[in-house]
């Protein structure tokens, strides 16, 4: 295994990876678009503001990250902002995954849907809605997918007990 160097913050990524197609695409868009970045374990992570998520996906898709691979959320309670959304994009051309992140607040978690960019995100966003209670604005069919329709609570939140409510 080749141990890749770790670039812990935005500054280091901008200095050493400005040629990277994903970093370049973000910089060409706007200098403020990239609010955070890191390179760890051989993976590039770029963080954008939640209101810019759809635009970021359009830009990255145009830059060669053509395949939407996966999307999920992480609940960082009690930290604020509470929810981290992680989108994993794959480039068939560059043979590489990148992670796109956005953080949303816990009080009324809502973020734009990216189903207009990748229809594949449809089920994934429904899953995150179901299990985390994060809403996706502009989703064509936002309803529970795993749990029954009348289920109470969102099981993957950290304040939901592993055994469920009894």
């Amino acid at each position: 295994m080749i141990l890749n160097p770790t670039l812990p913050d935005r500054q280091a990524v901008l200095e050493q990876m400005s040629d990277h197609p994903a970093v370049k695409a973000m910089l060409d868009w706007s200098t403020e678009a990239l609010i955070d970045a890191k390179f760890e374990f051989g993976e590039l992570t770029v963080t954008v503001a939640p209101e810019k998520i759809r635009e970021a996906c359009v830009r990255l898709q145009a830059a060669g990250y053509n395949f939407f691979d996966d999307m999920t959320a992480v609940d960082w309670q009690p930290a604020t902002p509470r929810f981290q959304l992680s989108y994993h994009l794959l480039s068939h051309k560059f043979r590489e995954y990148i992670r796109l992140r956005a953080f949303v607040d816990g009080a009324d978690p809502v973020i734009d849907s990216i189903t207009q960019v990748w229809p594949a995100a449809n089920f994934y966003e429904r899953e995150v809605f179901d299990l985390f209670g994060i809403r996706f604005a502009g989703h064509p069919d936002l309803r529970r997918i795993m749990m029954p329709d009348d289920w109470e609570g969102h099981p993957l939140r950290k304040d939901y007990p592993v055994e469920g409510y009894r």
Partner: protein
Amino acid sequence: MATVGTTPEITNLGGQHMVLNMGPQHPATHGVLRLVVEIDGEVIVKIRPEIGYLHTGIEKTCEAKFYQQIVPLTDRINYLDPLANNLCYCLAVERLLGLEIPERAQWIRVLLTELSRLNSHLVWLGTHAMDIGALTVFLYTFREREEILRLFEAVAGQRMMTSYFRIGGLAMEPPPGWFDRVQAFLNIFPEKIDEYSNLLTGNPIFINRLKGVGYLSGADAVALGVTGPPLRASGVDFDLRRDMPYSGYEKFKFEVPTSTEGDTWARYVIRLVEMRESVKIIQQALDGMPGGPIKAYAPKIVLPDREQMKTGMESLIHHFKIVTDGFPVPAGEVYQGIECGHGQIGYYVVSDGTAKPYRVHMRYPSFPTLQALETMCKGRLIADMVAVIGSIDIVLGEIDR
């Protein structure tokens, strides 16, 4: 708190349309898949998959377990390709830990993952042909699958839920004579593929049921997140084993079959060719099997051998500590993708520096591929839908997790 909608009925049925409910208990849905299908006569207008009947909350369970206790959970997700699940999870955690896996362990992992792919493809072929009406093939493929399961049993003690790959290597050395048994299986297996092919490839009924059915274009496949054989059948030449090699796949020579037909027939042909390529990989693994240890040297992470544990104080302490307290994994997040029988698996592991993962998310290929079902079936007959479900090789355990 988010508002929750209820499952809507399909409304505005224009003129002669009707709704047909297929599943969740239906032999052609390969599990508990429920499809709400709007039809016009026998022609499909709309398909709405309803899933979640097998949801067991594995991702939530993972957050309450030590890292090493999650390996058996991964088997249960895709029960046809258990070793690929083990491999993907172990690779993800090993990357977080920075563990270097000995070459022998990597090669045995490749060998077993390919056997597991054969297992997955054999079950697919048998059940797919059975859906179409060719019942005989099922008996033939399960005969060979039985031999593969015996090989798994010999090496792991379990036929289906193997849990043989562990974080840092393998559970134990394969028993004496095991590699000869694999070789004996490989010697007969290519003929068996010919046998299946003879039963199906020239069969006019099979051809008519499959050719031109369930067309999916390459652009649609990418947009809908389709991976694995259905993606390659639509002309997108991408295979993680070749393009982003893991666990030493770069040392093996194999072809990745593709087709531009994009129909059910192309998916059938591609899987048959993939079986032959897997045989090649297993043969290379057998021929070049390196010696050496099967576990990484990391006493605080990898369980010691039984013998050492009984004779060495240090090993006993390490064993006790790993089993009772687990081992801390450095904080960070990784996403590991591998290619299993159906398509790409991805494990997203987030660590907060403790002995239990903060979050584990699994991406499994059938989940996005199910979204492409409507695109493939629209405007075709109900009976074609059964052929298409078979051809995307759906596993409900991995959709619901």
